[in-house]
């Protein structure tokens, strides 16, 4: 028996050697987790992740220390100014015929970036549902963990963080913020120049368009199918009518739009605006902790609910350290890593884990502190809208630019 398995081992080694000689490596099998851990040891994982927020970079530095200590994985954060740059990189490698020696091992991604990667066959997998910690996500109870903007995940990416659209305002200036998209227009008319939104195609700006389109439409069903299946002009007419009325009352009378959510926040920090919004529920909490926003800022969710999604981790088809990337993804799904990400002085993000499934000790990690005064209420955050089909994103962006650019 022992000789048998030794012989088997030699054969495996030989086979592996041959495969390596031909540039083919056996892919790691996540169902055999201890083998994955073995293979991951000493691997370097290049993790391409948006680095526009210092708090995210600080958190990832902590993660790098942890996976080095526990799994001997060398995690390097490749700091992206825009996730699309990671996508470009992988595409350039495919174009150059680089199929086994990629420079990105793990990518923080969702929505149309994921759709583009999946459609072009640039992802490795399926692998994510076999991760030991994936069961803690309870995807049967939360089907949104298997769908990224209505596109099936198919095991190609592992959930990491939850996000939801929240609004925040300076309570020292604003007493009653608008509770719906329709109220927002009336509010802006009464408070000219106090609100603006990032210019699409920034994802946060596009998110507001989607939120407004969903709230203003009588029928939301068309938004959950590909855009080509409905009459775009008709379905989006309420949205454009609304924006035409809103724009003259925006900051700079709608002749200027910030570039992204961070700039939107800076406009509030500078006192230019009094109302803003974010896709990170803990935005106001961390900004107050970083002394960027005054402590009088409060956040909330619109009365009829707001868009919510999860962001994921994907492994490119040509990664050299797939096992290491899986180990990192699994660690990021662990209660300890998720609980740390949820702390207000870290990322104040919301966990993708189902707390009911956790052991009491693990669950306790999440109950550390009371809700911060600036955080949205749990009741508010329970009002969720699902993301439309990703094909609406480019269609809305294009139509927006067509209407408002160069005017």
């Amino acid at each position, binding site marked *: 028996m022992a000789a048998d398995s030794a012989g088997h081992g030699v054969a495996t080694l030989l086979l592996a050697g041959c495969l390596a000689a031909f540039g083919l490596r056996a892919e790691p099998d996540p169902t055999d987790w201890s083998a994955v851990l073995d293979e991951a040891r000493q691997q370097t994982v290049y993790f391409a992740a948006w680095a526009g*927020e*210092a708090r995210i970079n600080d958190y990832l530095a902590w993660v790098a220390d942890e996976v080095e200590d526990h799994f001997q994985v060398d995690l390097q954060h490749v700091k992206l*100014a825009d996730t699309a740059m990671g996508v470009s990189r992988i595409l350039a490698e495919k174009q150059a015929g680089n199929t086994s020696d990629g420079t990105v091992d793990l990518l923080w991604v969702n929505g149309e970036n994921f759709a583009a990667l999946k459609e072009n066959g640039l992802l490795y997998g399926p692998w994510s549902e076999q991760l030991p910690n994936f069961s803690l996500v309870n995807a049967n109870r939360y089907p949104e963990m298997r769908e990224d903007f209505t596109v099936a995940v198919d095991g190609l990416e592992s959930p990491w963080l939850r996000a939801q659209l929240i609004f925040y305002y300076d309570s020292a200036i604003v007493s009653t913020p608008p509770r719906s998209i329709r109220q927002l227009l009336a509010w802006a008319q009464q408070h000219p120049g106090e609100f603006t939104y990032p210019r699409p195609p920034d994802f946060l700006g596009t998110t507001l368009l989607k939120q407004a389109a969903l709230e203003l439409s009588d029928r939301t069903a068309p938004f959950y199918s590909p855009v080509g299946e409905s009459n775009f002009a008709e379905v989006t007419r309420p949205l454009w009518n609304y924006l035409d009325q809103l724009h003259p009352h925006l900051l700079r009378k709608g002749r200027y739009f910030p570039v992204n959510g961070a700039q939107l926040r800076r406009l509030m920090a500078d006192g230019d605006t009094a109302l803003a919004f974010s896709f990170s529920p803990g935005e106001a909490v961390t900004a107050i902790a970083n002394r960027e926003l005054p402590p009088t800022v409060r956040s909330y969710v619109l009365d009829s609910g707001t868009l919510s999604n999860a962001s994921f981790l994907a492994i490119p088809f040509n990664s050299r350290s797939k096992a290491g990337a899986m180990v990192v993804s699994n660690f990021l799904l662990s209660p300890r890593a998720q609980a740390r990400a949820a702390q207000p002085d870290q990322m104040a993000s919301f966990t993708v884990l189902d707390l009911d499934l956790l052991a009491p000790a693990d669950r306790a990690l999440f109950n550390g502190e009371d809700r911060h005064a600036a955080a949205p209420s749990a009741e508010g955050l329970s009002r969720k809208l699902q993301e439309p089909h990703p094909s609406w994103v*480019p269609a809305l962006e294009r139509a927006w630019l067509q209407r408002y650019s*160069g*005017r």
Partner: protein
Amino acid sequence: MLRWATPVLLALLLVTTLLGLAVALLPAFGFFPAVGGTGFTLAHWQELAQVPGLGHSIRVSLLAGLVTPAISLATVFLFLASASGSVLDSWIRRLVSPVLAIPHAAAAFGLAFLIAPSGFLFRLVSPTLSGWERPPDLLIVNDTWGISMIVGLIVKEVPFLLLMCLAALPQIAPADRVRLARSLGYRPTVAWLKVVAPALYPLIRLPLLAIIAFSSATVDVALILGPTLPPTLSVMLLDWFNDPDLQQRFLAGAAAVLQLGLSLIVIGCWLLAERMVRGIYRRWIVSGNRRGGHRVLSTGGRIGLPAVVAIMLVSLLVLMINSFSGLWQFPHTLPGDWTLQAWVRVLPGLAEPLANTLVIAVLATGCSLLLVVGSLEYDFRQKKKSGLARWVLYIPLVIPQVVFLFGLVVFTESMQWQPGLVLVICAHVLLVIPYTYLTLADPYRRLDPRWLHTAATLGASPASAFRRVRLPLLLGPLLTSAAVGVAISVSLFLPTQLAGAGRVNTITTEAVALASGGNASIIAVWALLQALLPMLVFVLALAAPVIVWRHRKGMQAFR
């Protein structure tokens, strides 16, 4: 050995750039196999023509490309004409290089912090003078016509142009010329403009063309100060390039060709305007008018350039305040809440990017200088006027970086070269060479050859004459050129990002990555770090000749 310098330079500049361009431009005409484009089509050009706001983007690019060099040139010439030899002159000369060293992105951030409605200038007058408790709703930064962007460009290009002028001036003996003209009764400013300017202009023409190309295709300044609706063509190009919808690559390719065409058109317009101005200027020179407009010209000269330097210095000061500020709400002139928080968060992670930045800058500048000096020395010994056609130098400066660099990355990958430090250094060499060549070529060629003839008659070999006569005499220009090289290298973002596959972190990649974040204090810290490093190098470059030649009175002219 020497004769290889020029061919290597040529290969680097011409072959790599054009290769990258070719690989990257194929998508403009529909060829891009990775996304299924295999045939020839003009459809993407039709698509580009229908992009909303394209006409306005083009107009802004043209405007920036023409106005920036015109105002920069006028500012610098009027200053030199009116202030040469004055106390002001010696102060500005001391300040210009450190100011020049501030990278574009850092300068643009500083300017934005200064002139925005919630910026420092408005805080100074609020609420006491203006009555504003909240920032006024004015469109200043990111204005539709790119005025603030042009101001940002001018503030950055004026020191560059002044430095180019100062490097070239000793070759034409300006003091003697002015003295002669003054003996004929010309007022000093008029004299300078009539007898020095016409001789100086040809020497700084190429740096001017680089300014034109840069202004019409800038990405980083446009991102921070430029219009947003629509943005400039260069920014749109980058957006399409980075768009996750891979079909947009075709559009990016077409836009790249258009951007290239635009930069060339602006240069063409400039050359045309040059001819027209030349005629008028000549008539003014020979008119015999000795004092007409003297007061206006010299006042303008004494205000314009010091204003530019003042804007830069105040911007730096505002960056400095911002880096130590906690919550700093309008209309407080100074933060009520001072903190080291931003520095404490940045400094622990500084070692690696700082080391990378230094290694890349030193090696890239070293390689560039070796090649440039080798090529110039070979030309000198062969008595060639110029072995390297000058337009070659302009290829990497005129073709938008984002275009040919993407092509180059695809190429290096297909050659199985690992991205990393070595490739980053190569990419930097490509973009540092033109600037080192431009700053060094004229002083090098114009060094009076009789020094070297004298050395030869005393029995010195060409190599020893080079080492013992030319290098010491050119110490100042060499160090200036090296400092320019380091400043350029430190400020490069795209080449570092693309050739290093994002794995080679430098101060600039960190700064630009965080620029998309909203924490003003952290941005200020990185912008300051980005500015500090090249400034230090410049101070060293300026101080070294003074120290080395402190006992040689005769060397003062060469400092």
